[in-house]
């Protein structure tokens, strides 16, 4: 190609207090190319992106855009320079409409002093139609959208900006495979028109599929940039984790076992209906389906949050009414929710309280808090699950995403549940930690805990489950046992 690269990052460093988030990172992106960015949780990927888009300023090093120094002092400046960013934390304004979220910013279309709502709404509908092939109501409040719909709205927003450089920080964590496919096609088309991409993901298949080159960060350093042809899943995961990640295998179909959880004709208005299944001790049920298929609602209803409105649940053969989480906990059920920040973690608290929050009544001794037991249990869980934390007194927010997720899982493991419900248990977690969580679930099942897992990562679901329930439009579309369950069959059942 010749000439300077479109974007080049030269020796950029950034520290937050004592944390060295970036340590002399250099990399470059060509026009029309997709640079994959990989690395463990906390490796510095998002920090680098926030430097590129003017949220943070680098402590050292420089960034060149189109051969000229690029030092935006605010996101608005970065946007003016032709950079559009999809941020990992899905920053939306829930009480504004989809159209307003898509066009929010200094360049919002206006007529006179006011925003031009009509033009925005029209363009919003067009964008959804051409980009995603979907019809939407642009006036709908984002508050009423699912995680996937929010993610899509921000993607539409990013793609509508006519940017020269599009940065995507984990854009697909809530999306189902068909949506991801469609998006990737768009990314490729835009790339072929000369737009440069930076793409961050923990899903290695996606990285391999989309990227022209992949840069891997570890502890804030670039430990290698692989060009297309040089990378495969094994090599990549080794480079990311700094060690070989052994992917443990798919379990065979369930051995016959006594029934642990039985569900008959379960339904919830507006969510799902007519769901029945029977799970044995130590069995793992995977639940697959597209967004809006009712899979998450089904899992939540087993925990009473909110409860099912029809049907029957039996635990160990006993009909059990689960109207609220307390009922479920009493019946020996645990629940790892999909959004660990909004629904799981107590950000202002330390690790040991976060670990023990569901078992609080057991920590009262003569009316007072048993601090010793609190620490002992938390340390045991930390060791069992190899949670990386300075100590169990560290604030939970100082942990990496994967370790935060393990804290959440340990909260239920500490109670020795008979049934563990999980939704997207590895979302946003790096390869190494993802494997550790998979191992953890398998070990749990071996000990006799029955698991129900809903996930949009099919590989993972297939590796974990004895059986897969495929949901479509609120109903069970198909049940696939053992080797019957393959990626293609699941997608077929989910989409028809």
């Amino acid at each position, binding site marked *: 190609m010749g000439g300077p690269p479109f974007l080049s990052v030269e020796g950029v460093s950034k520290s937050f207090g004592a944390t060295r988030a970036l340590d002399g990172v250099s990399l470059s992106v060509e026009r029309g190319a997709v640079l994959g960015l990989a690395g463990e949780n906390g490796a510095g990927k998002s920090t680098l992106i926030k430097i590129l888009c003017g*949220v943070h300023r680098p402590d050292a090093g420089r960034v060149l855009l189109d051969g000229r120094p690029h030092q935006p002092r605010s996101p608005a400046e970065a946007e003016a320079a032709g950079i559009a960013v999809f941020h990992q934390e899905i920053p939306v304004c829930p009480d504004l409409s989809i159209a307003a979220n898509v066009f929010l910013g200094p360049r919002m279309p206006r007529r006179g002093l006011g925003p031009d709502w009509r033009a925005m709404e029209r363009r919003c509908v067009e964008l959804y139609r051409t980009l995603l092939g979907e019809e939407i109501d642009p006036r709908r409040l984002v508050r009423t959208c699912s995680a996937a719909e929010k993610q899509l709205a921000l993607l539409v927003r990013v793609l509508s900006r006519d940017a020269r450089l599009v940065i995507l920080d984990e854009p697909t964590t809530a999306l189902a495979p068909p949506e991801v496919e469609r998006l990737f096609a768009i990314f490729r088309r835009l790339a072929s028109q000369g737009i440069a991409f930076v793409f961050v993901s923990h899903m290695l298949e996606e990285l391999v599929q989309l990227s022209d080159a992949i840069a891997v960060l570890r502890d804030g350093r670039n430990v290698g940039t692989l060009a297309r042809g040089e990378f495969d899943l094994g090599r990549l995961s080794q480079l990311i984790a700094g060690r070989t990640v052994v992917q443990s295998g798919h379990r065979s179909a369930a051995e016959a076992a006594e029934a642990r959880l039985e569900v008959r004709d379960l339904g919830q208005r507006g969510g799902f209906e007519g769901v029945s299944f029977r799970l044995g001790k130590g069995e793992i049920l995977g639940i697959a389906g597209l967004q809006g298929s009712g899979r998450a609602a089904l899992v939540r209803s087993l925990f009473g949050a909110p409860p099912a409105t029809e049907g029957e649940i039996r635990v160990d053969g006993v009909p059990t009414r689960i109207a609220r989480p307390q009922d479920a906990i009493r019946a020996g059920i645990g629940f790892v929710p999909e959004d660990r920040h909004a629904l799981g973690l107590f950000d202002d608290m330390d690790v040991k309280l976060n670990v023990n929050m569901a078992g609080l009544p057991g920590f009262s001794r003569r009316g007072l808090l048993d601090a010793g037991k609190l620490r002992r249990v938390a340390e045991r869980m930390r060791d069992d699950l190899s949670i990386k934390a300075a100590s169990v007194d560290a604030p939970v927010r100082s942990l990496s995403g994967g370790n935060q997720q393990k804290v959440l899982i340990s909260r239920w493991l500490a109670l020795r549940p008979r049934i563990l419900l999980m939704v997207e248990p590895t979302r946003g977690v790096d390869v190494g930690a993802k494997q550790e969580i998979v191992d953890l679930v398998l070990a749990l099942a071996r000990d006799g805990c029955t698991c129900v897992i809903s996930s949009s990562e099919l590989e993972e679901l297939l590796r974990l489950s004895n059986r897969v329930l495929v949901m479509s439009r609120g109903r069970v579309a198909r049940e696939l046992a053992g080797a019957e369950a393959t990626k293609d069959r699941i997608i077929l059942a989910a989409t028809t």
Partner: protein
Amino acid sequence: MDAAARPKKRLGAVARIFGLRDFGVLVAAVLIAAFFSVITPTFLTSYNLFNILRQTAELGIIAMAMTMLIVAGEFDLSVGGIYAVAGVVTGVLAGRHDVNIWWAALAGMTAALLLGLLNAVLIASTRINSFIATLSTMMVYRGVAMVLSEGQPISFRLDFFMDLFGRAELFGVLPVPVVWFAAWGVLSYVLLHRTTFGVRVFATGDNREAAELAGIKTTRVKATAFLLTALASGLAALISLSFLRTVTPTQGTGLELEAIAAAVIGGTAMSGGVGSILGTFLGTFIMAEVRTGLVLLGTDAYVQDAFVGLVIALAVIVNVRLSTRRR
């Protein structure tokens, strides 16, 4: 588990039609008016209705600005203090030092804006919670008003200025404060609901980080809202001093909570990101009609405030019920 987690019909299209969002509070306002009209014949007279509107002018002007501020995610408890300082500055200059009232009023407004700026700078630079920050500036500003006025009320001579801001009656019936109220209301409405600045205000209060990442200068948005609130307090002070021909350094005590209450009755969310000028107008109106209605009924002095409290609670409940049902 949470109201937000309940299934909600998509009302998008409906919500955008102006006013329907404020349906609940409109119902509350009308019900209260109907109640009093039936019980006491004097309630539904034009004299009384204009009296209610006149009476709400100062509070309403401040409450509408406060709405913008709350929507942007902040509070200003110092509005009463600013109101007092603006009045006292004008009063000391015009009433005691014989400065031309127009210059004095200009000085009063400038003082109000400076105090608003101080609030904005304090909150922007230290990032401390605006509730506590303006609680302290409230006390400081009140002290300023006390010192400047030497604790004494200040009276004015009659002047064209007074007519213009507080005393004239348009077409012989419409008190001029009501006109100012309406003008400020239209201005606020346009600003919050019909300009891109308004969208920025909503976005800032809704999710500050998201707004920042979208390129909105949220600190500037909040500062502007503080300035507008101060401006409203200054304007209200001019109307009050014109109408009464007196300023007192203690005037506007408790105004801050009433302004917040009016906004919340009108559907403004204390957590920011949700609110409407029309709603706040109706909220102010409800508070005033209850007060007046109770007086017309001859309610015992000791329980008047209690009834006002009761009605505030009922109005908020009605509004919350009607809005969640519709969302």
